[in-house]
């Protein structure tokens, strides 16, 4: 009887047909893109189709695992693509003793942001964007940041760097938590050079961070402080030198959003919007050195990671050295607040779309996944951002 029932109710599911259909559709999808190299059936003319298309929407590249629709950068007031290269150098002046002074003004706000098509998140922001502005300076500069809290809860800015206790932006020390409507000034010398971050340190800490109060803080090395090869390396890292201008630099802040507030993220991304760089791949010139300032601002999960497909990179942990800590790796892991610099190039690579993502598959499938679109005619990254209303 059992066998009979089993046969009646289960065997009629045509698993084999289903599988066959799935394989066919996957092959079809792959055939349309760069993966077709391994799929012999796909006609060669289709191979180049994806490269010729505009950087918008080759969602077929990753099958049906994706969000549906698109996020309007104009509505958000920020564009994850523009954020890659949007460095804030501050108001620069020279102080009496010759030290460079960089002045910034940061306003904390409450703002609803769209983090996946049609899905909003009640964020707390620095300057109406998540992640906040990328502050960039040179080691030894004097940094003066006026912080205004226009949000609904007390906030701070806590910089990862070297400074006095009262400039640390933590509760009860110095000005402590800044109440809504209040302001304060954080001032310190930029030390040490590297790829750092800042975030709100108000309590409850988890909530203040995951609501969106974080950003990248990059201190370039000053070549004058180094000799020989290190000096050259410092020049390539310092935005004031032409050597640095030859590198395609981008900032990726890995973050997550717990939209139902159950302590588990529903969205993972680099620069906030799920699958942003899968829908709009990042253009890459094959012969240009690529430098990613990678910051892990993910809340709740102890670690996040970055994995580059079909290529390897050198990694400078915290960016505080001029020689890589780890050479020729394709995956790097960062704990919460850990960050580093990745350097790689696609020189001599076949043009195509090369994937990158967190190698926690769950994070990748929940939005932290994208492509480098390697092609000779790649436009400069700075030209890729959407036009936003002022």
């Amino acid at each position: 009887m059992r066998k009979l029932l089993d046969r009646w109710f289960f065997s009629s599911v045509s698993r084999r047909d289903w599988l066959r259909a799935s394989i066919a559709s996957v092959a079809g999808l792959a055939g349309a893109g760069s993966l077709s190299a391994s799929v012999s059936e796909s006609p060669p003319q289709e191979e180049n189709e994806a490269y010729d298309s505009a950087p918008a929407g080759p969602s077929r590249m990753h099958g049906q695992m994706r969000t549906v629709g698109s996020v309007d950068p104009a509505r958000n007031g920020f564009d994850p693509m523009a954020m890659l290269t949007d460095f804030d150098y501050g108001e620069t002046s020279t102080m009496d003793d010759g030290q460079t002074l960089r002045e910034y003004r940061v306003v904390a706000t409450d703002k609803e942001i769209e983090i996946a098509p049609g899905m909003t998140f009640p964020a707390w922001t620095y300057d109406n964007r998540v992640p906040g502005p990328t502050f960039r300076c040179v080691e030894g500069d004097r940094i003066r940041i006026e912080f205004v809290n226009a949000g609904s809860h007390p906030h701070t800015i806590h910089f990862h760097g070297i400074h006095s206790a009262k400039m640390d932006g933590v509760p009860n020390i110095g000005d402590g938590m800044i109440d809504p409507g209040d302001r304060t000034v954080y001032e310190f010398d930029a030390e040490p050079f590297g790829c750092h971050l800042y975030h709100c340190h108000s309590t409850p800490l988890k909530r203040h961070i995951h609501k969106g109060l974080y950003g990248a803080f990059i201190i370039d090395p000053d070549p004058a402080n180094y000799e020989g090869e290190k000096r050259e390396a410092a020049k390539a890292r310092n935005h004031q030198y032409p050597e640095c201008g030859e590198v395609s630099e981008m900032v990726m802040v890995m973050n997550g959003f717990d939209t139902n507030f159950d302590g588990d993220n529903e969205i993972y991304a680099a620069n906030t919007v799920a699958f942003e760089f899968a829908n709009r791949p990042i253009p890459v010139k094959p012969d240009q050195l690529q430098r990613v300032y990678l910051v892990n601002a993910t809340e709740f999960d102890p670690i996040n990671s970055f994995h580059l497909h079909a290529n390897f990179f050198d990694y400078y942990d915290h960016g505080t050295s001029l020689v890589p800590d780890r050479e020729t790796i394709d995956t790097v892991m960062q704990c919460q607040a850990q960050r580093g610099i990745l350097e790689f190039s696609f020189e001599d690579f076949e043009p195509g779309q090369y994937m990158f993502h967190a190698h926690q598959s769950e994070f990748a499938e929940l939005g932290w996944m994208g492509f480098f679109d390697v092609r000779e005619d790649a436009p400069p990254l700075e030209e890729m951002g959407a036009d936003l209303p002022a």
Partner: protein
Amino acid sequence: MRVLKNASTSTLWLWGSLPLVLAAIALAAFLYLDPMEALTGNQPPVQNLSIERVELTDDGFTVDVVNAAPEPVTISQVQVDEAYWTFDVEPDSTLPRLGEATVHIPYPWVHGELHEIRLLTDVGMTFSHTVEVATKTPQPTPTRWGLFALLGAFIGVIPVGLGLMWFPVLQNLSEQVMNFVLALTMGLLLFLFVDTLLEGIEIAEHVPDVFQALPLVFLVGLMSYLILTAAGRWGGAADRSTLDGRRWIATAIALGIGLHNLGEGMAVGAAIAAGEAALGSFLVVGFVLHNLTEGIGIGAPMAEDDPGWGRLAWLTVLGGGPAILGTWMGGFHYSPFWAVLFFAVGAGAILQVIVEVGRLLVERAGDDTTIATSWVNLGGVTTGLVIMYATALFV
């Protein structure tokens, strides 16, 4: 208002309609002033998407959803097994209050494994449904109809019919033994009543709050009881001293048990459709044993009479046949809301039958009312409960 005691018809019309007119004015004023806005306007929306049904097809999942919250809600994204997945929504991704939508998700589900479907709304709220054991949802092909009918027959018709085949034995029992059998029937029915009611309550918990399924279990059950009681009294139909009256009671028992079996068939059909029951032959064996006793219950009130095989066959169909109907409904289009209603009607029907059998026992005791609670009768009820409990262990 004494002055209006003998008022004219037109005056009464005026007084009759005045409260309605004033109520309309008051409501209009309330909506215009909208004090609720000041009280609740600042509160975030409470969203509640209820996933009613998930169908597994060769093309993936088809999910039926109801918006069970007061405010409209938009389905913005869909995750399957913690991965965003493409989807489309019919008729619209924004659902008004009590609005329904169907979400199609082209997902390559894996046979026999667990999948979690999660709908994400415009504000990032999540509503999940777990497919416990993925298996293709049966489509209503002629073969399917036939197979479900066969399953329903095994659950309902066959055991009830076999139970009724004891009828000749029932007819030749002594008065005390017959009392015992009637009391045993009451025990069986008591168990079924509690079981039916609890099943209804259990399913009611899966129905969105807005439909008030839990109160419905009791209210529909009560109405079912009252209507069947009234029908039984109508024209002295349930007069146990007459042949027709006893036949009516037997029919009523068969009807109540039939409704119960409808619910059971529905549960089994739905379990197969959802792939949630590892339905083996053992379960069917359990149902056969369990429901054999139902046949005895139907036959007992007519033991003094000679109903003929035709009537017994009809009672078999009435008591067992609905199981077939149930497997079809459960297997092809299961709705928790309708399941609740059927269980509620079934519970009311069984309660009515318990009362009728109880009256029968009291009547048989004649003037000596203490016999109604004699050890024989108590023993019968207890035995009935124990039999049902023991056979229920198989199900």
